[in-house]
Protein backbone atom coordinates (compact mmCIF):
# COMPACT_ATOMS: atom_id res chain seq x y z
CA UNK A 1 0.00 0.00 0.00
CA UNK A 2 1.25 3.49 -0.71
CA UNK A 3 1.93 6.31 1.69
CA UNK A 4 -1.12 8.04 0.25
CA UNK A 5 -3.37 5.38 1.80
CA UNK A 6 -1.71 6.00 5.15
CA UNK A 7 -2.29 9.74 5.02
CA UNK A 8 -5.86 9.26 3.80
CA UNK A 9 -6.56 6.85 6.68
CA UNK A 10 -5.27 9.53 9.05
CA UNK A 11 -7.56 12.13 7.51
CA UNK A 12 -10.62 9.87 7.83
CA UNK A 13 -9.66 8.94 11.40
CA UNK A 14 -9.05 12.56 12.40
CA UNK A 15 -12.46 13.64 11.12
CA UNK A 16 -14.17 10.96 13.18
CA UNK A 17 -12.04 11.44 16.29
CA UNK A 18 -12.34 15.20 16.52
CA UNK A 19 -16.11 15.17 16.07
CA UNK A 20 -16.35 12.29 18.57
CA UNK A 21 -14.47 14.44 21.07
CA UNK A 22 -16.71 17.45 20.42
CA UNK A 23 -19.90 15.41 20.77
CA UNK A 24 -18.56 13.81 23.94
CA UNK A 25 -18.60 17.29 25.47
CA UNK A 26 -22.38 16.86 25.59
CA UNK A 27 -22.08 14.03 28.10
CA UNK A 28 -24.27 15.06 30.99
CA UNK A 29 -25.30 18.28 29.24
CA UNK A 30 -27.85 17.12 26.66
CA UNK A 31 -31.21 18.93 26.66
CA UNK A 32 -33.00 15.79 27.83
CA UNK A 33 -31.69 12.42 28.91
CA UNK A 34 -32.60 10.57 25.70
CA UNK A 35 -30.81 13.11 23.52
CA UNK A 36 -27.83 13.23 25.84
CA UNK A 37 -27.56 9.48 25.29
CA UNK A 38 -28.15 9.80 21.54
CA UNK A 39 -25.42 12.34 20.90
CA UNK A 40 -22.91 10.45 23.02
CA UNK A 41 -23.82 7.19 21.26
CA UNK A 42 -22.99 8.93 17.99
CA UNK A 43 -19.75 10.05 19.57
CA UNK A 44 -18.98 6.45 20.46
CA UNK A 45 -19.68 5.23 16.92
CA UNK A 46 -17.33 7.89 15.56
CA UNK A 47 -14.66 6.97 18.06
CA UNK A 48 -14.94 3.35 16.92
CA UNK A 49 -14.55 4.41 13.30
CA UNK A 50 -11.53 6.51 14.21
CA UNK A 51 -9.93 3.55 16.00
CA UNK A 52 -10.43 1.32 12.98
CA UNK A 53 -8.78 3.86 10.69
CA UNK A 54 -5.89 4.54 13.12
CA UNK A 55 -5.28 0.83 13.61
CA UNK A 56 -5.08 0.39 9.88
CA UNK A 57 -2.73 3.38 9.60
CA UNK A 58 -0.36 1.82 12.14
CA UNK A 59 -0.38 -1.52 10.30
CA UNK A 60 0.57 0.32 7.11
CA UNK A 61 3.23 2.43 8.78
CA UNK A 62 4.87 -0.43 10.65
CA UNK A 63 5.14 -2.31 7.36
CA UNK A 64 6.65 0.62 5.43
CA UNK A 65 10.19 0.70 4.10
CA UNK A 66 12.55 3.31 5.54
CA UNK A 67 12.02 5.43 2.46
CA UNK A 68 8.24 5.33 2.88
CA UNK A 69 8.55 6.14 6.58
CA UNK A 70 10.61 9.16 5.64
CA UNK A 71 7.89 10.27 3.20
CA UNK A 72 5.25 10.43 5.93
CA UNK A 73 7.62 11.63 8.64
CA UNK A 74 5.83 14.95 8.98
CA UNK A 75 2.71 13.18 10.31
CA UNK A 76 4.51 11.03 12.88
CA UNK A 77 4.50 12.23 16.49
CA UNK A 78 7.89 13.38 17.75
CA UNK A 79 7.40 11.89 21.20
CA UNK A 80 6.81 8.42 19.76
CA UNK A 81 10.24 8.49 18.13
CA UNK A 82 11.75 8.27 21.62
CA UNK A 83 9.68 5.22 22.51
CA UNK A 84 11.58 2.74 20.32
CA UNK A 85 8.62 0.50 19.70
CA UNK A 86 6.09 0.00 16.89
CA UNK A 87 3.59 2.77 16.20
CA UNK A 88 0.22 2.25 17.95
CA UNK A 89 -3.20 3.77 17.43
CA UNK A 90 -3.02 5.80 20.65
CA UNK A 91 0.24 7.43 19.55
CA UNK A 92 -1.54 8.83 16.52
CA UNK A 93 -4.48 10.13 18.54
CA UNK A 94 -2.70 11.44 21.61
CA UNK A 95 0.76 12.51 20.54
CA UNK A 96 0.40 14.34 17.26
CA UNK A 97 0.53 18.12 17.23
CA UNK A 98 -2.15 20.36 15.85
CA UNK A 99 -0.57 20.86 12.40
CA UNK A 100 -0.29 17.06 11.99
CA UNK A 101 -4.06 16.69 12.25
CA UNK A 102 -5.86 16.53 8.91
CA UNK A 103 -9.49 16.82 10.02
CA UNK A 104 -12.05 19.04 8.34
CA UNK A 105 -12.44 22.40 10.06
CA UNK A 106 -16.15 21.87 10.65
CA UNK A 107 -15.43 18.99 13.03
CA UNK A 108 -13.31 21.13 15.37
CA UNK A 109 -15.68 24.11 15.76
CA UNK A 110 -16.71 24.61 19.39
CA UNK A 111 -19.61 22.62 20.78
CA UNK A 112 -21.99 25.59 20.59
CA UNK A 113 -25.67 25.22 21.43
CA UNK A 114 -27.91 22.30 20.52
CA UNK A 115 -28.74 23.80 17.12
CA UNK A 116 -25.03 24.08 16.30
CA UNK A 117 -24.47 20.50 17.41
CA UNK A 118 -27.25 18.92 15.37
CA UNK A 119 -26.63 21.01 12.26
CA UNK A 120 -22.92 20.18 12.24
CA UNK A 121 -23.76 16.52 12.73
CA UNK A 122 -26.23 16.69 9.86
CA UNK A 123 -23.73 18.32 7.47
CA UNK A 124 -21.03 15.87 8.47
CA UNK A 125 -23.15 12.71 8.50
CA UNK A 126 -24.59 13.48 5.08
CA UNK A 127 -21.02 13.91 3.84
CA UNK A 128 -19.83 10.70 5.48
CA UNK A 129 -22.82 8.84 4.10
CA UNK A 130 -22.01 9.62 0.45
CA UNK A 131 -18.27 9.30 1.03
CA UNK A 132 -18.51 5.84 2.62
CA UNK A 133 -20.90 4.73 -0.10
CA UNK A 134 -18.06 5.19 -2.55
CA UNK A 135 -15.25 4.14 -0.24
CA UNK A 136 -16.82 0.76 0.47
CA UNK A 137 -16.00 -0.20 -3.13
CA UNK A 138 -12.42 1.05 -2.99
CA UNK A 139 -9.53 -1.17 -4.03
CA UNK A 140 -7.99 -0.64 -0.62
CA UNK A 141 -9.87 -3.50 1.00
CA UNK A 142 -9.38 -2.45 4.60
CA UNK A 143 -10.60 1.10 4.00
CA UNK A 144 -13.52 -0.41 2.09
CA UNK A 145 -14.32 -2.76 4.98
CA UNK A 146 -14.28 0.05 7.54
CA UNK A 147 -16.53 2.17 5.30
CA UNK A 148 -18.93 -0.74 4.77
CA UNK A 149 -19.08 -1.30 8.51
CA UNK A 150 -19.50 2.37 9.38
CA UNK A 151 -22.12 3.36 6.83
CA UNK A 152 -24.79 1.50 8.78
CA UNK A 153 -24.05 3.64 11.81
CA UNK A 154 -23.85 6.81 9.75
CA UNK A 155 -27.32 6.06 8.36
CA UNK A 156 -28.71 6.38 11.88
CA UNK A 157 -26.69 9.53 12.57
CA UNK A 158 -28.02 11.10 9.41
CA UNK A 159 -31.64 10.33 10.22
CA UNK A 160 -31.30 11.51 13.78
CA UNK A 161 -29.59 14.80 12.92
CA UNK A 162 -31.90 15.52 9.96
CA UNK A 163 -34.93 15.05 12.19
CA UNK A 164 -33.50 17.54 14.66
CA UNK A 165 -32.78 20.13 11.98
CA UNK A 166 -36.42 19.92 10.92
CA UNK A 167 -37.68 19.95 14.48
CA UNK A 168 -35.75 23.13 15.29
CA UNK A 169 -36.43 24.90 12.00
CA UNK A 170 -40.09 24.04 12.19
CA UNK A 171 -40.38 24.55 15.97
CA UNK A 172 -40.67 27.71 18.05
CA UNK A 173 -39.45 31.17 17.22
CA UNK A 174 -36.49 30.60 19.53
CA UNK A 175 -35.51 27.28 17.97
CA UNK A 176 -35.91 28.71 14.48
CA UNK A 177 -33.61 31.62 15.39
CA UNK A 178 -31.01 29.30 16.75
CA UNK A 179 -30.87 26.96 13.79
CA UNK A 180 -30.75 29.96 11.45
CA UNK A 181 -27.79 31.35 13.38
CA UNK A 182 -26.10 27.97 13.28
CA UNK A 183 -26.63 27.80 9.54
CA UNK A 184 -25.11 31.25 9.06
CA UNK A 185 -22.13 30.33 11.28
CA UNK A 186 -21.37 26.94 9.78
CA UNK A 187 -22.13 27.31 6.11
CA UNK A 188 -18.71 28.67 5.17
CA UNK A 189 -17.15 25.50 6.62
CA UNK A 190 -19.03 23.17 4.28
CA UNK A 191 -17.06 24.06 1.15
CA UNK A 192 -13.95 22.32 2.42
CA UNK A 193 -15.74 18.95 2.32
CA UNK A 194 -15.60 19.06 -1.48
CA UNK A 195 -12.20 20.63 -2.07
CA UNK A 196 -9.99 17.77 -3.27
CA UNK A 197 -6.63 17.12 -1.64
CA UNK A 198 -3.84 15.04 -3.16
CA UNK A 199 -3.99 12.17 -0.63
CA UNK A 200 -7.71 11.51 -1.06
CA UNK A 201 -8.65 8.23 -2.72
CA UNK A 202 -12.16 9.46 -3.45
CA UNK A 203 -12.88 12.44 -5.68
CA UNK A 204 -14.90 14.42 -3.14
CA UNK A 205 -16.06 16.82 -5.80
CA UNK A 206 -18.34 14.09 -7.13
CA UNK A 207 -20.15 13.92 -3.78
CA UNK A 208 -21.20 17.53 -3.83
CA UNK A 209 -24.35 17.08 -5.88
CA UNK A 210 -25.93 14.31 -3.78
CA UNK A 211 -24.92 16.10 -0.60
CA UNK A 212 -26.41 19.43 -1.68
CA UNK A 213 -29.62 17.74 -2.76
CA UNK A 214 -29.97 16.07 0.64
CA UNK A 215 -29.23 19.31 2.48
CA UNK A 216 -31.71 21.30 0.38
CA UNK A 217 -34.38 18.69 0.91
CA UNK A 218 -34.05 18.73 4.71
CA UNK A 219 -33.64 22.50 4.97
CA UNK A 220 -36.77 23.07 2.93
CA UNK A 221 -38.71 20.71 5.21
CA UNK A 222 -37.34 22.73 8.11
CA UNK A 223 -38.51 25.97 6.50
CA UNK A 224 -34.93 27.12 5.99
CA UNK A 225 -33.08 28.25 2.88
CA UNK A 226 -29.52 27.54 1.76
CA UNK A 227 -27.30 30.54 2.49
CA UNK A 228 -26.28 32.52 -0.57
CA UNK A 229 -22.77 33.11 0.67
CA UNK A 230 -20.15 31.44 -1.47
CA UNK A 231 -16.79 32.24 0.13
CA UNK A 232 -15.56 29.13 1.90
CA UNK A 233 -13.06 28.38 4.66
CA UNK A 234 -10.44 25.70 4.12
CA UNK A 235 -7.13 24.44 5.49
CA UNK A 236 -7.98 21.53 7.78
CA UNK A 237 -7.07 18.89 5.22
CA UNK A 238 -3.61 20.44 5.00
CA UNK A 239 -3.12 20.76 8.75
CA UNK A 240 -4.00 24.46 8.95
CA UNK A 241 -6.58 24.75 11.67
CA UNK A 242 -8.73 27.21 13.54
CA UNK A 243 -7.63 28.23 17.02
CA UNK A 244 -10.20 25.83 18.48
CA UNK A 245 -8.32 22.62 17.67
CA UNK A 246 -5.39 23.43 19.96
CA UNK A 247 -7.67 23.72 22.99
CA UNK A 248 -9.44 20.50 22.09
CA UNK A 249 -6.15 18.60 21.76
CA UNK A 250 -4.78 20.10 24.97
CA UNK A 251 -7.69 18.57 26.85
CA UNK A 252 -7.85 15.30 24.93
CA UNK A 253 -4.11 14.61 24.96
CA UNK A 254 -3.32 15.83 28.47
CA UNK A 255 -2.96 12.43 30.10
CA UNK A 256 -0.68 10.81 27.51
CA UNK A 257 1.54 13.86 27.39
CA UNK A 258 1.77 14.29 31.16
CA UNK A 259 2.23 10.56 31.79
CA UNK A 260 3.63 9.03 28.58
CA UNK A 261 2.57 5.45 27.90
CA UNK A 262 0.29 5.31 30.94
CA UNK A 263 -2.45 2.71 30.85
CA UNK A 264 -5.31 1.78 33.15
Amino acid at each position, binding site marked *: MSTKNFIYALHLADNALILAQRNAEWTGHGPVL*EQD*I*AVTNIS*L*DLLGQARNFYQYATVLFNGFSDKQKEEVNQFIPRLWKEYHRELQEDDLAFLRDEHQYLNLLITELPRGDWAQAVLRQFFFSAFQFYLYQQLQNNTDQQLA*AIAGKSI*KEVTYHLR*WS*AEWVIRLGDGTEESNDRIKNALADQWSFTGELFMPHDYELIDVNTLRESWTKKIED*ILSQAGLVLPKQTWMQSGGKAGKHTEHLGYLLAEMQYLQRAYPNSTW
Partner: protein
Amino acid sequence: MIDEQHIWNILEDVKDPEVSVLSVVDLGIVRSVKILDDKIDIVITPTYSGCPAMDVINMDIRLKLIEKGFRNITIQQQLSPAWTTDWMSEEGKKKLKAFGIAPPNPKQQFCTSEMFQQEAVQCPRCNSWHTQLISQFASTACKSMYRCLDCKEAFDYFKCH
Protein backbone atom coordinates in the same frame (compact mmCIF):
# COMPACT_ATOMS: atom_id res chain seq x y z
CA MET B 1 -7.95 -33.55 17.97
CA ILE B 2 -10.29 -30.87 19.30
CA ASP B 3 -13.89 -31.17 18.19
CA GLU B 4 -15.04 -27.94 16.54
CA GLN B 5 -18.63 -28.44 17.68
CA HIS B 6 -17.37 -28.71 21.24
CA ILE B 7 -15.82 -25.25 20.93
CA TRP B 8 -19.07 -23.82 19.55
CA ASN B 9 -20.89 -25.31 22.55
CA ILE B 10 -18.45 -23.63 24.92
CA LEU B 11 -18.96 -20.31 23.12
CA GLU B 12 -22.70 -20.66 23.83
CA ASP B 13 -21.74 -19.97 27.45
CA VAL B 14 -19.98 -16.69 26.68
CA LYS B 15 -22.52 -13.93 27.18
CA ASP B 16 -22.72 -10.45 25.72
CA PRO B 17 -21.69 -8.28 28.70
CA GLU B 18 -24.33 -5.67 27.85
CA VAL B 19 -27.23 -7.99 26.99
CA SER B 20 -26.55 -10.85 29.34
CA VAL B 21 -29.24 -13.19 27.98
CA LEU B 22 -27.51 -13.45 24.61
CA SER B 23 -24.47 -15.57 23.96
CA VAL B 24 -21.88 -14.46 21.43
CA VAL B 25 -23.21 -17.25 19.17
CA ASP B 26 -26.80 -15.96 19.47
CA LEU B 27 -25.57 -12.50 18.53
CA GLY B 28 -23.95 -13.85 15.40
CA ILE B 29 -20.60 -12.22 16.03
CA VAL B 30 -18.56 -15.44 15.93
CA ARG B 31 -17.73 -15.74 12.24
CA SER B 32 -15.60 -18.86 12.30
CA VAL B 33 -13.90 -21.44 14.48
CA LYS B 34 -10.93 -23.26 12.99
CA ILE B 35 -8.96 -26.03 14.60
CA LEU B 36 -5.41 -26.88 13.63
CA ASP B 37 -3.90 -29.60 15.83
CA ASP B 38 -4.15 -28.08 19.32
CA LYS B 39 -4.61 -24.52 18.08
CA ILE B 40 -7.97 -22.75 18.06
CA ASP B 41 -8.48 -19.82 15.69
CA ILE B 42 -11.61 -17.78 16.29
CA VAL B 43 -12.76 -14.89 14.13
CA ILE B 44 -15.26 -12.43 15.59
CA THR B 45 -16.82 -9.36 14.03
CA PRO B 46 -17.78 -6.23 15.97
CA THR B 47 -21.43 -5.23 16.20
CA TYR B 48 -20.77 -1.48 16.18
CA SER B 49 -17.44 0.18 15.39
CA GLY B 50 -17.27 1.74 18.82
CA CYS B 51 -18.86 -1.09 20.78
CA PRO B 52 -17.04 -1.01 24.13
CA ALA B 53 -18.12 -4.61 24.76
CA MET B 54 -15.82 -6.01 22.06
CA ASP B 55 -12.66 -6.00 24.17
CA VAL B 56 -14.56 -7.60 27.03
CA ILE B 57 -16.07 -10.22 24.71
CA ASN B 58 -12.63 -10.98 23.36
CA MET B 59 -11.31 -11.55 26.87
CA ASP B 60 -14.37 -13.51 28.00
CA ILE B 61 -13.98 -15.95 25.09
CA ARG B 62 -10.34 -16.44 25.96
CA LEU B 63 -11.03 -16.94 29.67
CA LYS B 64 -13.85 -19.39 29.04
CA LEU B 65 -11.67 -21.51 26.76
CA ILE B 66 -8.77 -21.42 29.23
CA GLU B 67 -11.18 -22.47 31.97
CA LYS B 68 -12.08 -25.51 29.81
CA GLY B 69 -8.42 -26.41 29.44
CA PHE B 70 -7.56 -24.87 26.06
CA ARG B 71 -4.41 -22.81 25.95
CA ASN B 72 -3.51 -22.17 22.35
CA ILE B 73 -6.06 -19.60 21.22
CA THR B 74 -6.01 -16.75 18.75
CA ILE B 75 -8.94 -14.39 18.40
CA GLN B 76 -9.06 -12.08 15.43
CA GLN B 77 -11.45 -9.30 14.55
CA GLN B 78 -12.75 -9.07 11.05
CA LEU B 79 -14.77 -6.09 9.79
CA SER B 80 -15.98 -7.35 6.46
CA PRO B 81 -18.63 -8.47 5.73
CA ALA B 82 -20.11 -6.11 8.28
CA TRP B 83 -22.19 -7.59 11.06
CA THR B 84 -25.93 -7.40 10.61
CA THR B 85 -28.78 -8.18 12.97
CA ASP B 86 -29.90 -10.74 10.36
CA TRP B 87 -27.13 -12.95 11.77
CA MET B 88 -28.78 -13.05 15.15
CA SER B 89 -30.13 -16.55 15.77
CA GLU B 90 -33.87 -17.22 16.09
CA GLU B 91 -33.11 -18.60 19.52
CA GLY B 92 -31.39 -15.32 20.36
CA LYS B 93 -34.42 -13.30 19.22
CA LYS B 94 -36.69 -15.36 21.48
CA LYS B 95 -34.35 -14.87 24.43
CA LEU B 96 -34.28 -11.11 23.82
CA LYS B 97 -38.04 -10.88 23.77
CA ALA B 98 -38.39 -12.94 26.94
CA PHE B 99 -35.87 -10.55 28.52
CA GLY B 100 -38.08 -7.55 27.66
CA ILE B 101 -36.12 -6.26 24.64
CA ALA B 102 -37.93 -6.20 21.31
CA PRO B 103 -35.84 -8.25 18.84
CA PRO B 104 -34.68 -6.67 15.55
CA ASN B 105 -37.05 -6.70 12.61
CA PRO B 106 -35.73 -8.23 9.38
CA LYS B 107 -33.39 -5.79 7.72
CA GLN B 108 -35.11 -5.40 4.37
CA GLN B 109 -38.03 -3.75 6.09
CA PHE B 110 -36.05 -0.69 7.03
CA CYS B 111 -32.52 0.67 7.33
CA THR B 112 -32.64 3.55 4.91
CA SER B 113 -31.50 7.09 5.43
CA GLU B 114 -35.00 8.40 4.81
CA MET B 115 -36.61 10.26 7.58
CA PHE B 116 -39.54 9.58 9.79
CA GLN B 117 -39.92 6.21 8.22
CA GLN B 118 -41.30 4.46 11.23
CA GLU B 119 -41.01 0.75 11.48
CA ALA B 120 -43.59 -1.31 13.30
CA VAL B 121 -42.08 -2.62 16.50
CA GLN B 122 -43.92 -5.08 18.65
CA CYS B 123 -44.07 -4.53 22.42
CA PRO B 124 -42.16 -7.42 24.03
CA ARG B 125 -44.48 -7.34 27.04
CA CYS B 126 -48.04 -7.21 25.73
CA ASN B 127 -47.35 -7.96 22.03
CA SER B 128 -49.16 -4.83 20.89
CA TRP B 129 -48.01 -3.21 17.64
CA HIS B 130 -49.37 0.08 18.90
CA THR B 131 -45.98 1.50 19.85
CA GLN B 132 -44.07 4.72 19.40
CA LEU B 133 -40.39 5.63 19.03
CA ILE B 134 -39.01 7.69 21.92
CA SER B 135 -35.37 7.83 20.90
CA GLN B 136 -33.26 6.23 18.18
CA PHE B 137 -30.44 5.74 20.65
CA ALA B 138 -30.93 4.11 24.03
CA SER B 139 -28.86 2.48 26.76
CA THR B 140 -26.42 1.13 24.18
CA ALA B 141 -25.70 2.07 20.57
CA CYS B 142 -27.40 -1.11 19.35
CA LYS B 143 -30.78 -0.26 20.88
CA SER B 144 -33.45 2.38 20.48
CA MET B 145 -36.18 3.25 22.91
CA TYR B 146 -39.89 2.79 22.35
CA ARG B 147 -43.04 3.13 24.38
CA CYS B 148 -46.07 0.89 24.17
CA LEU B 149 -49.26 2.89 23.82
CA ASP B 150 -51.36 0.01 25.16
CA CYS B 151 -49.55 -1.29 28.23
CA LYS B 152 -47.83 2.11 28.67
CA GLU B 153 -44.44 0.55 29.31
CA ALA B 154 -41.24 1.91 27.80
CA PHE B 155 -38.99 -0.75 26.29
CA ASP B 156 -35.72 -1.20 24.42
CA TYR B 157 -35.71 -2.27 20.79
CA PHE B 158 -32.63 -4.02 19.40
CA LYS B 159 -32.54 -2.00 16.21
CA CYS B 160 -31.88 -3.51 12.84
CA HIS B 161 -28.40 -2.97 11.53
